[in-house]
């Protein structure tokens, strides 16, 4: 599983409240979440997510278990999320909705091209390759299927 795109840099301890605020949760319309992603952090950010790779700091996605957080990023067109460490529910949710998450410590410059190869286990930034921590077999299978729902259907 590979991906590439311009980097969107974020800091440490990005919580799921800041990814999608509580006031937008009560709907089944996924486009609402994409539209309001990161609104309280930077209202222009949602417009820059399509085709982008988020490069966050430590403890990415901490806080609430709200799956709307990972869905908002996927629906906004985020190609993958890279961080040196993730909050565990966010990490599991991302895999379950088919959003690649890559545990790696890499430098970040907004807009610079970032590429990753989850199977080979690397992230490339500015011509330099950095190691990515491998996912469990089960997680790779779910991600490869496009998420837990298609994985479930393919297993039945």
């Amino acid at each position, binding site marked *: 599983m590979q991906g590439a795109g311009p980097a969107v840099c974020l800091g440490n301890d990005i919580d799921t409240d*800041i990814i999608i605020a*509580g006031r937008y949760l009560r709907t089944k319309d996924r486009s609402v979440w994409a539209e309001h992603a990161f609104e*309280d952090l930077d209202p222009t950010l949602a417009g820059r997510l399509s085709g982008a790779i988020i490069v966050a700091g430590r*403890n990415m996605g901490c806080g609430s*278990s709200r799956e709307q957080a990972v869905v908002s990023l996927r629906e906004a067109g985020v190609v993958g999320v890279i961080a040196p460490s*993730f*909050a565990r529910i966010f990490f599991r949710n991302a895999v*379950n909705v088919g959003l690649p998450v890559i545990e790696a410590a890499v430098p970040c410059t907004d807009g610079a091209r970032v590429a990753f190869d989850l199977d080979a286990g690397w992230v490339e930034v500015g011509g330099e390759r950095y190691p990515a921590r491998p996912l*469990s077999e089960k997680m790779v299978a779910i991600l490869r299927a496009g998420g837990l729902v298609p994985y479930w259907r393919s297993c039945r």
Partner: protein
Amino acid sequence: MSTLSERILGAPAGEYVDREVDIAFAHDGTGVLAREALREMGVERLPHPERLRLIFDHIVPANTGTTATLQAELRGYARSAGIELSDAGGGICHQVMSEGVVRPGMVVVGADSHTCTLGAFGAFATGVGATDMAAIWASGATWFRVPETIAVRFSGGLTGAAEPKDIALTYVAELGMEGATYRALEFVGDGVAGISMDGRLTLCNMAVETGAKAGMFHADAVTVRHLADYGLVTASQKPEDCRYERTVDIDLADIVPLVAVPHRVDTVREAEEVAGTHLDQVFVGTCTNGRYEDLARFARIVRGRKVAVRTLVVPASRAVLARTIATGVLADIVDAGCMVAPPGCGPCLGAHAGVLGEGEVCLSTANRNFKNRMGVGGEIYLSSVATAAASALAGEITVPEGV
């Protein structure tokens, strides 16, 4: 020689296991998404509806037509799928599950990050997302990575006005917001025996604020007695001489009233240091501190006096509310000039009923003070119930007197 997580999940730390779950619950927020996922998965029949619960707590009663419609659909689904529903007003999912449902040794999953609360019973309880929950409802099982464990060892006992919430803020500050990511916490040591069941629930509740997957106490005489009140016969769990990744030692006698200041849960100061901070609202409740013991403690402090600031009290469950009525605690709270809202999460997640305006400052007994969580531009300080009570009376952050 195993940790509680290793014993309950049946494998050593680091291994991946597939495990049947004993209880799996979702609330009005995550339940809607889980229902959608089940629809997309094409799942019609659930193998173990008796293990499942739907609990409406996040936005109760419904605040808009959209919310009401989503809740009505979920209510209908619960009925058709044979899932027991705790409807609006019944209380917060973790509290409802603590009232005679969760028992020692169980594997419990909830579609809410604070499911770790229920580790207070010596159960392995952890939060999952909505799609995970859908797959669990459809199959009755899920996968776990057995976590490494950090021991938080208590010695001595609390003194003065310090209470379990202050212990929680102490260990969160010590470990930091990602200090226990992917790991379980076990609360051990001589100091444990003196902590009540309500206090243990408060302590386990905040485990996720350190990134932990679970926070657990071994079931002991306190646990057995609590569950006996619900007619459940259970046994204690003996701590084994196991390998912890590390141990954090906390002398309970050293703990004083503390406050987490905006906007990080692990930025903790002595209440003394932030005393005098102006407040626009005090909020007492949530899955951290909305239990009977909390409300009784609050009432003891405000009884016969008047609060000086908008003060919102939200009991964690109908059972808690009923008990505060029966014992006169609720009357003391109302007479002191507080607002009382129906059991549920209240304004904790900033969705309704008590959200903050731009620049407003709230002292809350909840577990999260993330930027903008209770309303854009609002600031949240987190404290114990006693600190909240003393501060409500003064209209500013105030150190509670020893009791």
